[in-house]
């Protein structure tokens, strides 16, 4: 199967997922509302002292996106599950990797948009000062999102089709996300603090390395997960 065909297939699936999402506005809006709510809850748990809350900002933002994101990941398979379309989708000629790629793209768009909103709210609530190196910050957030979406989409392929999917996805996903989360949060923290220790670069490089490893691993493993 040619790469171009795969890419077209992936785009088609991503587009299908995103339009289904757009039509059900309730989906995106409620998940984002949940993320913001979680962020506020963190504010109550960790605030109101200024310094404590500023230190906690990166962690709170990423966790809020993570907790709300698991709902999005499970739901990204919901459409096919409801209509029994998953078996049909696999039957189409072409690699299952295109399915994975398509879902990755759709989920990434979803999470990226959610991150933008949550970060905006976080900057306000947690008294964050935007650093001059904010383009680098955008890069780090993007890389963190890639890692999050890669593993989330992969494990949701199984969790969404099991019993107790709301419990199973976090249980499987969270421990696996430790490296990505640590790198993303530490890099964010370093940048927000003006990168005094200079370790933002090291964490960023680690984050990219993690993304590559997990992208490759999940692409290889997805075959086994979707065919059964």
């Amino acid at each position, binding site marked *: 199967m040619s790469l171009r065909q795969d890419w077209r297939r992936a785009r088609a699936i991503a587009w299908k997922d995103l339009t289904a999402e757009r039509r059900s506005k309730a989906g995106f809006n409620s998940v984002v509302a949940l993320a913001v709510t979680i962020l506020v809850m963190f504010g109550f748990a960790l605030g109101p002292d200024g310094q404590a809350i500023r230190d906690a900002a990166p962690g709170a933002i990423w966790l809020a996106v993570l907790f709300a994101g698991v709902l999005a990941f499970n739901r990204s398979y919901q459409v096919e599950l409801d209509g029994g379309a998953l078996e049909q989708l696999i039957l189409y000629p072409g690699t299952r990797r295109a399915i994975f790629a398509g879902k990755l793209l759709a989920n990434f768009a979803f999470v990226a948009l959610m991150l933008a909103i949550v970060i905006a709210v976080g900057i306000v609530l947690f008294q964050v000062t935007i650093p001059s190196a904010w383009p680098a910050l955008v890069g780090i957030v993007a890389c963190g999102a890639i890692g999050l979406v890669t593993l989330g989409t992969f494990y949701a392929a199984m969790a969404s*089709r099991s019993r*107790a999917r709301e419990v199973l996805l976090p249980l499987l996903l969270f*421990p696996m996300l430790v490296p990505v989360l*640590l790198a993303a949060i530490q890099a964010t923290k370093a940048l927000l603090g003006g990168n005094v220790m200079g370790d933002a670069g090291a964490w960023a490089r680690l984050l990219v390395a993690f993304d590559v490893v997990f992208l490759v*691993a999940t692409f290889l493993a997805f075959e086994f997960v979707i065919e*059964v």
Partner: protein
Amino acid sequence: MTHVAHSPSVTLPRTNRLSIFGWFAFLFLIACQGIAIAISPPDRDMGDLQKIMYVHVPAAWMTMLAPLTVLVFALRYLWKRREEDDLLAAAAAEVAVAFAGLTLVLGMLWARPTWGVWWTWDARLTSTLVLFLILAGYLALRALVDDREQRAQWSAAVGVLGAINVPIVYMSVRWWRTIHQIQSSPSTVDHAYVIGLRLNAFAFLFVMIYLIRARYEASLIERAAEHESEAIALGRGRGTAHE
């Protein structure tokens, strides 16, 4: 008329040989622990607390070895699709969880008198905790998936990814923190303790092998029972035709 078992290639295990090995493993462990405690002098800094090393370090080593076992059998399953490999991987994961939990508790029992706190977020303890959670997730997956083929294949994928994540987690947590003393590895351990440590490491290894094997054989019998019930449920012409 004797019935024919429908279970495929599942031979009922000969528990006698296994039991003998089990007895040997346990007695050997007791002996090694006794020897180690008897011949080791109190450490300069830690005093008698040093003795914990003879259970904590081997437990930690087994905690690293067991996921490796899961990885190997998970890969074999994905390659050959033999059910035995899936059952072995699952048995190894269960034993791994037990050893991971043990390592954590022993780590805490060491940390408290040494640093005054029950938990330090240092690289090794934390990585072990994450490994514990990864394994727990693996077992939860198996518990929540009923379709046998799905369960085996998904477990294998999750097992492989989980196993390769272990060194990655360790690396990232180490970047994050560094407090844990380096005295646990034999290269930096005082000569007086190395023998006791190696002996106990082997003893733990034997015990772990025995436990995995025992759990695996229990799984085999479970499978045989499942096969029988299924065969009956599907109606074995012979039995009913005799009425």
